[in-house]
């Protein structure tokens, strides 16, 4: 398990860590306002690996095109939080 996946309490921390590791950014460079595509370079293809890691960690299923439909990291965190609430 990676460092950023050690805190069950902080979903935002885990998600930003996952995105950072895959997009090759330090987690400290990623905030809720960070633009997923334009600032981190995450496109639909890179998004697949991010979704896979998050699905596996939380044991949830996320629609494959969900990263295409959000602009900012904070929106993506909210999406995952709502999935976890429904779990």
């Amino acid at each position, binding site marked *: 398990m990676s460092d950023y996946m050690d805190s069950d309490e902080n979903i935002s921390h885990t998600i930003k860590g996952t995105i950072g590791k895959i*997009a*090759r*950014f330090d987690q400290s460079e990623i905030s809720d306002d960070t*633009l997923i595509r*334009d*600032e*981190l*370079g995450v*496109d*639909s*293809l*890179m998004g*697949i*690996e991010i*979704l*896979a*890691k998050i*699905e*596996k960690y939380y044991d949830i299923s996320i*629609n*494959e*095109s969900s990263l*295409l439909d959000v602009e900012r990291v904070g929106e993506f965190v909210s999406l995952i939080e709502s999935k976890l609430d429904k779990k």
Partner: protein
Amino acid sequence: MKNNKVSSICLVSPRRESWSTTPKIRRVLQEKNKFLKAWYTPSLSILTIAGMIPSEVHITIIDEDFESLNFDQSFDIVAISAMTQQALRAYEIAREFKKRGVFVILGGIHASVFPSEAINHVDAVFVGEAEKTFPQFLEDFQKNEQKRIYIQEEKIDLTESPMPRYDIFKRKDYFKDSKSFYNMIPIQTSRGCPHDCEFCLVTKIYGPKFRKKNIAQIRAEVLEVKKHFPGKLIMFADDNLFLDRKYSKELLNELKTLKVRWVAQSDIAVGSDDELLELIYESGCLFLLIGFESINPENLKTMNKSSWKYKQLNNYPMYIENIQKHGIIVFGSFIFGLDNDDNNVFKNVVEFMDRNNITGQLTIATPLPGSRMMERLQSEDRLLYEFPFWDKCSFFDVLYKPEKMTKSELEDGFVWAYQELFNESSFSKRAKYLKSIYKNI
């Protein structure tokens, strides 16, 4: 004789149609854009030329795909780099600037294969690589002794190629939608390809011998790109990043330390080398663009002299699976309208891509001026347009009579294949497959 002063140079990449000049094809490709991977990169030729211009000269770069040219702006020299598809627009630009007394020069692939055409439109033409001829021109121009044509006969040593001026774009804001021009930034590590495919100009322009930059040069270029384009994918512009495996592994080990995401072109043979594939993934590769070109053996047999691609055909599924297993997305490139393609080609390619869970790009066979394919089609009297039809050389337009179908059948089949492959449900299927791999890495 009066000397010329050079205080400002404008480097221009002329505009082009991004998808197709054929309305029914363009309409469908644009509609499906959400699931298509469009590549928007700055012209590496322009950035490299900028790297040869002395620091005291003011440089303006205009990429006409995103910005308008102001013909009334004053420059000492306008330098244009154009591929075939951009050539006619390049000539229009040259005409406007020449009318205003500006000295206009032109280089790039099209001018390199048709210098006799290009010279009718500009003041000086560059044939081949410009790392030596462009500085020579600048020296000649300042003495007012410039030539009409500069030809680079011998292939240049790439370790002497200057750092492309990635810094020059810092005036622009890349993070606002209206100006988010590029999603990939090109770096070239090598030139040359031994395959000499009938439709391709790479071997003709760059030669069959593989020439490369050194690792320190590439490291410096990657760091420069990271500095000026944080968060942008690096696109290695080499025609095949893995021709020299020892060099590739050294490069990949260096990339691992640089924390970047990148994409590159390759041939399918990388699929047999597990050590290389591990390094490719660990060093940040997102996808490899692999030129399968066709899955019809008869097409592949005659594509190049050694039938190299034909010999790999049986390995395609096994190698694709192995590349994917290592966490690397396979972005396949397929050409429609080759001489052995009949109406079944569309279904066959779609099924192949679906079965192997690959995404990619589909193009229409395009005879480029200077290629053996163009010579053959001319001699067979199969071209559909009179010269110069350069603006139609988009790779998404039918330019010659297909052998085993009509032009309309090729266009309709091409559109159908795009619709089948680039929609929510096929994206979702491919993504599910890749997710199952990533969960185990």
